């Protein structure tokens, strides 16, 4: 293809946006609505996923060591636990440290526990973390069978519930996004079906004067691209603006370490990039589908 031809395709594709007036408007609107919804969803979903990850990664297994265990036995137990492939991290916490933490967690009233400093009823503990949070239950069950593992605690019941809830939430989110994209495709392919009638003549004439299929496709390809990109302008502007304000407004108020928004940069820019790419794909896909059926000889 020559430079002149490429220029011609660019010029034609841009002129065509103007010539097709309200159809251009309808297609851009369809892309805009879709991307706006997808964008809002992505932001909500990715933030939710972020909370979930934080909560998940906080799940730990506390292995209470039998009081009769000698230092050697403790070492052996540690080695056994470390040998489990899913285990990522193991830290030792003596019963003195445990008591200190307990006293601290009770704040003012904690001082009454000071009595126990002489005769500490707690056990030494190994705190175990797995590489994947969902392996917690499996690993805990395994550790229970080891000698000198007196008690194994991982928030039985609650952890199972948490994982289940997160899984459901993620699946619902994914389902909604897929549904949305599907609706968008339907919307856009319908919009394009209407343009086909006007375009049929154009393609017929191009073929009549000896245009190759490749030549015919180019302006349509570019036009679809512009439609998709133009359709992304409003959603991106709106989402960047809103997320920036939401973030600067909420950020100082969110003190809970789990409940944190993803920082504006780079997160919002990444979402913007996804929307641009999605817009371009939807636009190109739509216009290519509409030309294809007229290129069959």
């Amino acid at each position, binding site marked *: 293809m020559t430079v*002149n031809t490429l220029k011609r395709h660019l010029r034609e594709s841009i002129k065509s946006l103007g010539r097709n007036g309200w159809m251009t408007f309808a297609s851009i609107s369809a892309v805009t609505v879709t991307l706006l919804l997808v964008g809002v969803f992505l932001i909500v979903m990715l933030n939710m996923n972020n909370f979930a990850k934080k909560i998940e990664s906080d799940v730990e297994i506390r292995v209470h060591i039998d009081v009769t265990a000698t230092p050697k036995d403790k070492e052996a137990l540690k080695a056994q636990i470390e040998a489990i492939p899913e285990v990522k991290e193991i830290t030792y916490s003596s019963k003195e440290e445990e008591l200190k933490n307990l006293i601290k967690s009770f704040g003012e009233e904690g001082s009454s526990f000071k009595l126990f400093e002489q005769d500490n009823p707690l056990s030494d503990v190994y705190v175990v973390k797995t590489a994947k949070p969902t392996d917690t239950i499996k690993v805990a069950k395994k550790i229970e069978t080891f000698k000198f593992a007196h008690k194994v605690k991982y928030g039985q019941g609650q952890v199972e519930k948490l994982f289940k809830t997160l899984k459901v939430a993620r699946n619902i989110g994914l389902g909604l996004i897929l549904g949305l994209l599907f609706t968008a495709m339907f919307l856009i392919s319908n919009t394009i079906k209407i343009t086909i009638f006007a375009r049929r003549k154009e393609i017929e004439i191009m073929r009549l004067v000896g245009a190759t299929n490749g030549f015919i496709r180019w302006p349509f390809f570019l036009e679809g691209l512009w439609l998709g990109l133009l359709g992304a302008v409003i959603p991106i502007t709106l989402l960047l603006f809103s997320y920036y304000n939401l973030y600067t407004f909420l950020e100082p108020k969110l003190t809970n370490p789990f409940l944190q928004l993803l920082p504006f940069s780079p997160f919002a820019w990444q979402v913007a990039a996804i929307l641009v790419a999605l817009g371009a794909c939807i636009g190109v896909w739509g216009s290519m589908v509409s030309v294809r059926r007229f290129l069959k000889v």
Partner: protein
Amino acid sequence: MIEMQDVYKTYPNGVMALNGINVRIKQGEFVYVVGPSGAGKSTFIKMMYREEKPTSGSIMINGVNLAKLKDSKVPLLRRHIGVVFQDFKLLPKLTVYENVAFALEVIEESPKNIKKRVMEVLDLVGLKNKARFYPDELSGGEQQRVSIARSIVNSPKIVIADEPTGNLDPDTSWGIMDLFEEINNRGTTVVMATHNREIVNSIKKRVIAIENGKIVRDEAKGEYGYDS
């Protein structure tokens, strides 16, 4: 040179539109194709620019057999054949100039040559001063002139026309015929399906009459031969 040998065409719905056509048209000839409606004239014309493929038989145009031509080569064939229709087939949203330039852009002609060549043919068809007009701002005859300009802008050896005056009043039709004669005088083959009795009987050329998909008459300087 166009040569058809034993050309048969049956449409997918079972209609047999061409029923054994044998014909030879030399370079530079002017040929009318006449016959009642439904006789197969349009199908005959469509064979020549490979809009339809024959069911059997061969169609040679300048040494290429269209019956065997690959789909991907059809665009190249069309660049050497100009086609004109009853309904003009202009793009309503392009100006006269753009409608004609279109045929050259498609073959990747340089912008400089496009401009020169388009103005030349618009001059030839007498529409140089209406280059910026849109089709709906022109009369039927003027629109047909634009479509003729487009068909000859890349200097094809053959121009085929399917009832080019079918939508025009008699006065306008004569003007269009002058154009075709002018094009023919420059050495281009013209094949024209027509229902226009007066024209065929006064501008005498070779006449091929088709009935029921067969050539029933083929005369140099022939008559229209039908009543209407």
